Protein backbone atom coordinates (compact mmCIF):
# COMPACT_ATOMS: atom_id res chain seq x y z
CA UNK A 1 0.00 0.00 0.00
CA UNK A 2 1.74 3.19 -1.07
CA UNK A 3 2.17 6.03 1.38
CA UNK A 4 4.48 8.76 2.56
CA UNK A 5 5.53 8.30 6.18
CA UNK A 6 7.67 11.36 6.77
CA UNK A 7 9.61 14.23 5.27
CA UNK A 8 12.88 15.63 6.65
CA UNK A 9 15.02 18.53 5.54
CA UNK A 10 18.70 18.67 6.52
CA UNK A 11 20.81 21.79 6.07
CA UNK A 12 24.28 21.75 4.59
CA UNK A 13 25.99 21.34 7.97
CA UNK A 14 24.01 18.20 8.74
CA UNK A 15 21.49 19.68 11.17
CA UNK A 16 17.82 18.84 10.94
CA UNK A 17 15.75 21.90 10.04
CA UNK A 18 12.38 20.34 9.34
CA UNK A 19 10.60 17.09 10.06
CA UNK A 20 6.99 16.06 9.67
CA UNK A 21 5.26 12.70 9.99
CA UNK A 22 2.20 11.63 8.06
CA UNK A 23 0.09 8.49 8.24
CA UNK A 24 1.22 7.53 11.71
CA UNK A 25 3.05 9.21 14.57
CA UNK A 26 6.73 8.43 14.68
CA UNK A 27 8.06 6.40 17.59
CA UNK A 28 11.16 8.57 17.85
CA UNK A 29 11.50 11.56 20.10
CA UNK A 30 12.94 14.80 18.76
CA UNK A 31 16.44 14.14 20.11
CA UNK A 32 16.67 10.83 18.29
CA UNK A 33 15.35 12.41 15.12
CA UNK A 34 18.03 15.08 15.28
CA UNK A 35 20.66 12.41 15.82
CA UNK A 36 19.38 10.33 12.92
CA UNK A 37 19.53 13.32 10.60
CA UNK A 38 23.18 13.95 11.47
CA UNK A 39 23.94 10.25 11.09
CA UNK A 40 22.41 10.32 7.64
CA UNK A 41 24.43 13.37 6.66
CA UNK A 42 27.68 11.59 7.58
CA UNK A 43 26.75 8.28 5.97
CA UNK A 44 25.81 10.12 2.78
CA UNK A 45 29.33 11.57 2.65
CA UNK A 46 31.06 8.29 3.53
CA UNK A 47 29.18 6.42 0.81
CA UNK A 48 30.42 8.99 -1.71
CA UNK A 49 33.99 8.50 -0.51
CA UNK A 50 33.81 4.70 -0.72
CA UNK A 51 32.38 4.70 -4.24
CA UNK A 52 34.17 2.50 -6.77
CA UNK A 53 33.44 5.09 -9.47
CA UNK A 54 34.67 8.67 -9.37
CA UNK A 55 32.15 11.48 -9.20
CA UNK A 56 29.69 10.08 -6.71
CA UNK A 57 27.49 12.61 -4.97
CA UNK A 58 26.02 10.42 -2.23
CA UNK A 59 23.12 8.11 -1.47
CA UNK A 60 19.93 8.67 -3.50
CA UNK A 61 17.79 5.88 -2.10
CA UNK A 62 17.99 3.38 0.76
CA UNK A 63 15.92 0.21 0.37
CA UNK A 64 14.90 -1.52 3.59
CA UNK A 65 12.41 -4.28 4.39
CA UNK A 66 9.52 -2.12 5.51
CA UNK A 67 10.30 1.28 3.98
CA UNK A 68 12.34 3.09 1.34
CA UNK A 69 14.12 6.33 2.05
CA UNK A 70 14.66 8.74 -0.83
CA UNK A 71 17.16 11.56 -0.62
CA UNK A 72 17.40 14.55 -2.91
CA UNK A 73 20.46 16.72 -2.47
CA UNK A 74 20.43 20.19 -3.97
CA UNK A 75 23.55 21.85 -5.35
CA UNK A 76 23.78 23.94 -2.18
CA UNK A 77 24.00 20.87 0.07
CA UNK A 78 20.46 20.88 1.45
CA UNK A 79 19.03 17.35 1.63
CA UNK A 80 15.37 16.45 1.35
CA UNK A 81 14.55 13.03 2.77
CA UNK A 82 11.30 11.19 2.31
CA UNK A 83 10.46 7.92 4.09
CA UNK A 84 7.89 6.04 2.04
CA UNK A 85 6.32 2.64 1.72
CA UNK A 86 8.23 0.43 -0.75
CA UNK A 87 5.28 0.33 -3.18
CA UNK A 88 5.06 4.08 -3.64
CA UNK A 89 5.58 5.24 -7.23
CA UNK A 90 7.37 8.32 -8.58
CA UNK A 91 8.92 9.47 -5.35
CA UNK A 92 11.98 10.96 -7.05
CA UNK A 93 9.76 13.21 -9.14
CA UNK A 94 7.61 14.12 -6.16
CA UNK A 95 10.67 15.09 -4.13
CA UNK A 96 12.20 17.16 -6.87
CA UNK A 97 9.07 18.92 -7.99
CA UNK A 98 6.47 19.06 -5.23
CA UNK A 99 8.54 19.26 -2.06
CA UNK A 100 11.37 21.33 -3.51
CA UNK A 101 8.91 23.78 -5.10
CA UNK A 102 7.01 24.21 -1.85
CA UNK A 103 10.30 24.76 -0.02
CA UNK A 104 11.32 27.43 -2.53
CA UNK A 105 7.99 29.20 -2.51
CA UNK A 106 7.12 29.16 1.18
CA UNK A 107 10.47 28.98 2.94
CA UNK A 108 13.17 30.56 0.81
CA UNK A 109 11.00 33.35 -0.48
CA UNK A 110 9.87 34.14 3.04
CA UNK A 111 11.81 37.34 3.90
CA UNK A 112 11.85 36.50 7.60
CA UNK A 113 13.38 33.06 7.13
CA UNK A 114 17.10 32.75 7.90
CA UNK A 115 18.84 30.13 5.83
CA UNK A 116 20.13 27.01 7.60
CA UNK A 117 17.82 27.72 10.56
CA UNK A 118 14.88 25.46 11.52
CA UNK A 119 11.89 25.95 9.26
CA UNK A 120 8.99 27.55 11.12
CA UNK A 121 6.84 28.64 8.21
CA UNK A 122 3.18 27.85 8.70
CA UNK A 123 2.38 28.14 5.00
CA UNK A 124 4.98 25.50 4.18
CA UNK A 125 3.51 23.13 6.77
CA UNK A 126 -0.08 23.53 5.61
CA UNK A 127 0.73 23.33 1.91
CA UNK A 128 2.94 20.28 2.37
CA UNK A 129 0.24 18.53 4.41
CA UNK A 130 -2.34 19.42 1.73
CA UNK A 131 -0.14 18.11 -1.12
CA UNK A 132 0.63 14.89 0.72
CA UNK A 133 -3.07 14.41 1.52
CA UNK A 134 -3.84 14.89 -2.18
CA UNK A 135 -1.29 12.25 -3.14
CA UNK A 136 -2.67 9.85 -0.55
CA UNK A 137 -6.18 10.37 -1.90
CA UNK A 138 -4.92 9.75 -5.42
CA UNK A 139 -3.27 6.51 -4.36
CA UNK A 140 -6.26 5.41 -2.33
CA UNK A 141 -4.49 5.44 1.01
CA UNK A 142 -6.75 5.55 4.06
CA UNK A 143 -5.43 8.07 6.53
CA UNK A 144 -6.55 8.84 10.04
CA UNK A 145 -7.98 12.34 10.12
CA UNK A 146 -5.99 14.46 12.51
Amino acid at each position, binding site marked *: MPGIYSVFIINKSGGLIFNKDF*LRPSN*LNLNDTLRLASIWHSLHAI*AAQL*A*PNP*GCTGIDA*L*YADTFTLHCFQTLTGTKFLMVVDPNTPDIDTILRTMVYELYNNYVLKNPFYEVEMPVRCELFDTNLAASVALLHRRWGVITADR
Partner: protein
Amino acid sequence: MVVHNIYVFDREGVCLYYHEWLRPKPVRDGAGTQSDDQKMMFGLFFSLKTFAAAMDPKSKSNAQLGAPLRIGENCSFYSFRASNYKLHFYETLSGLKIVLNTDENANDLRELMHYIYASIYVEYVTKNPLNEPGKPFNYDTFTSALNKHLRLIGQL
Protein backbone atom coordinates in the same frame (compact mmCIF):
# COMPACT_ATOMS: atom_id res chain seq x y z
CA MET B 1 25.06 -4.81 -15.40
CA VAL B 2 28.58 -4.13 -14.16
CA VAL B 3 29.87 -5.66 -10.95
CA HIS B 4 32.55 -3.61 -9.20
CA ASN B 5 33.65 -5.45 -6.09
CA ILE B 6 32.60 -7.78 -3.30
CA TYR B 7 33.40 -7.87 0.42
CA VAL B 8 32.70 -10.64 2.92
CA PHE B 9 32.81 -9.75 6.63
CA ASP B 10 32.29 -11.88 9.70
CA ARG B 11 30.39 -10.78 12.79
CA GLU B 12 33.46 -9.26 14.44
CA GLY B 13 34.13 -6.92 11.54
CA VAL B 14 37.08 -8.80 10.08
CA CYS B 15 37.07 -8.61 6.31
CA LEU B 16 37.34 -12.25 5.31
CA TYR B 17 37.39 -11.76 1.58
CA TYR B 18 37.64 -8.90 -0.89
CA HIS B 19 37.65 -9.13 -4.66
CA GLU B 20 37.37 -6.41 -7.26
CA TRP B 21 36.55 -6.67 -10.90
CA LEU B 22 36.32 -3.07 -11.99
CA ARG B 23 37.25 -0.14 -9.79
CA PRO B 24 37.91 3.03 -11.80
CA LYS B 25 38.40 5.13 -8.66
CA PRO B 26 41.45 3.80 -6.82
CA VAL B 27 41.34 3.09 -3.11
CA ARG B 28 43.96 5.83 -2.61
CA ASP B 29 41.42 8.51 -3.57
CA GLY B 30 38.77 7.08 -1.34
CA ALA B 31 39.75 5.71 2.02
CA GLY B 32 43.51 5.59 1.58
CA THR B 33 44.58 2.04 2.20
CA GLN B 34 42.85 -1.25 1.51
CA SER B 35 42.33 -2.00 5.20
CA ASP B 36 40.92 1.49 5.84
CA ASP B 37 38.56 0.99 2.96
CA GLN B 38 37.32 -2.30 4.46
CA LYS B 39 36.91 -0.81 7.92
CA MET B 40 35.04 2.16 6.51
CA MET B 41 32.76 -0.14 4.55
CA PHE B 42 31.95 -2.12 7.69
CA GLY B 43 31.27 1.07 9.61
CA LEU B 44 29.05 2.35 6.81
CA PHE B 45 26.71 -0.58 6.68
CA PHE B 46 26.75 -1.11 10.44
CA SER B 47 25.53 2.46 10.90
CA LEU B 48 23.04 2.10 8.07
CA LYS B 49 21.57 -0.96 9.78
CA THR B 50 21.16 0.98 13.03
CA PHE B 51 19.65 3.84 11.06
CA ALA B 52 17.16 1.57 9.28
CA ALA B 53 16.14 -0.13 12.52
CA ALA B 54 15.49 3.23 14.17
CA MET B 55 13.66 4.73 11.17
CA ASP B 56 11.40 1.73 10.70
CA PRO B 57 7.83 3.11 10.62
CA LYS B 58 6.30 -0.26 11.39
CA SER B 59 8.30 -1.24 14.46
CA LYS B 60 6.14 -1.87 17.49
CA SER B 61 8.50 -0.75 20.21
CA ASN B 62 9.88 2.70 20.66
CA ALA B 63 13.10 2.79 18.76
CA GLN B 64 16.29 2.77 20.73
CA LEU B 65 19.05 4.49 18.87
CA GLY B 66 22.00 3.34 20.93
CA ALA B 67 20.86 -0.16 21.85
CA PRO B 68 22.67 -3.18 20.36
CA LEU B 69 20.72 -4.79 17.55
CA ARG B 70 20.00 -8.50 17.35
CA ILE B 71 20.39 -10.08 13.96
CA GLY B 72 17.15 -10.96 12.26
CA GLU B 73 14.93 -9.07 14.66
CA ASN B 74 14.81 -5.55 13.31
CA CYS B 75 14.10 -4.03 9.96
CA SER B 76 17.34 -3.96 8.00
CA PHE B 77 18.23 -2.39 4.72
CA TYR B 78 19.16 -4.64 1.81
CA SER B 79 20.42 -2.16 -0.72
CA PHE B 80 21.15 1.50 -1.32
CA ARG B 81 21.58 3.39 -4.56
CA ALA B 82 24.06 6.22 -4.86
CA SER B 83 24.47 8.43 -7.90
CA ASN B 84 26.84 6.12 -9.78
CA TYR B 85 26.78 2.77 -7.96
CA LYS B 86 24.48 0.51 -6.03
CA LEU B 87 25.43 -1.41 -2.93
CA HIS B 88 23.73 -4.70 -2.04
CA PHE B 89 23.92 -6.05 1.46
CA TYR B 90 23.12 -9.52 2.76
CA GLU B 91 23.41 -10.65 6.35
CA THR B 92 23.00 -14.20 7.55
CA LEU B 93 21.71 -15.09 11.01
CA SER B 94 25.23 -16.09 12.03
CA GLY B 95 26.42 -12.53 11.45
CA LEU B 96 28.21 -13.11 8.17
CA LYS B 97 27.80 -10.10 5.89
CA ILE B 98 28.22 -9.99 2.13
CA VAL B 99 28.46 -6.64 0.33
CA LEU B 100 28.34 -6.33 -3.44
CA ASN B 101 28.82 -3.10 -5.40
CA THR B 102 27.28 -2.91 -8.86
CA ASP B 103 26.37 -0.12 -11.23
CA GLU B 104 23.34 1.97 -10.34
CA ASN B 105 20.95 0.31 -12.82
CA ALA B 106 20.90 -3.04 -11.06
CA ASN B 107 17.58 -4.40 -9.88
CA ASP B 108 16.83 -6.14 -6.62
CA LEU B 109 19.67 -8.64 -6.23
CA ARG B 110 18.56 -10.28 -3.00
CA GLU B 111 18.26 -13.69 -4.67
CA LEU B 112 21.73 -13.40 -6.15
CA MET B 113 23.13 -12.48 -2.73
CA HIS B 114 21.39 -15.44 -1.17
CA TYR B 115 22.77 -17.70 -3.90
CA ILE B 116 26.29 -16.38 -3.35
CA TYR B 117 26.00 -17.25 0.32
CA ALA B 118 24.17 -20.57 0.10
CA SER B 119 25.69 -22.13 -2.98
CA ILE B 120 29.13 -20.57 -3.19
CA TYR B 121 30.27 -19.45 0.26
CA VAL B 122 28.81 -22.42 2.15
CA GLU B 123 30.06 -24.92 -0.43
CA TYR B 124 33.59 -23.62 -0.88
CA VAL B 125 34.40 -21.95 2.41
CA THR B 126 32.28 -23.29 5.26
CA LYS B 127 32.62 -26.86 4.06
CA ASN B 128 36.34 -26.49 3.56
CA PRO B 129 37.94 -28.42 6.46
CA LEU B 130 41.08 -26.30 6.34
CA ASN B 131 39.20 -23.03 6.65
CA GLU B 132 39.74 -21.14 9.90
CA PRO B 133 36.68 -19.11 10.79
CA GLY B 134 37.51 -15.54 11.68
CA LYS B 135 40.59 -15.42 9.48
CA PRO B 136 40.67 -13.92 5.98
CA PHE B 137 40.62 -16.50 3.23
CA ASN B 138 41.47 -16.48 -0.45
CA TYR B 139 40.54 -19.73 -2.11
CA ASP B 140 40.78 -19.98 -5.92
CA THR B 141 37.82 -22.34 -5.90
CA PHE B 142 35.66 -19.70 -4.25
CA THR B 143 36.80 -16.95 -6.62
CA SER B 144 36.37 -19.06 -9.72
CA ALA B 145 32.93 -20.32 -8.62
CA LEU B 146 31.91 -16.71 -8.04
CA ASN B 147 33.23 -15.63 -11.45
CA LYS B 148 31.56 -18.56 -13.11
CA HIS B 149 28.19 -17.81 -11.59
CA LEU B 150 28.36 -14.12 -12.42
CA ARG B 151 29.38 -14.90 -15.98
CA LEU B 152 26.51 -17.39 -16.17
CA ILE B 153 23.93 -14.79 -15.32
CA GLY B 154 25.54 -12.35 -17.69
CA GLN B 155 26.93 -9.91 -15.17
CA LEU B 156 30.60 -9.95 -15.90
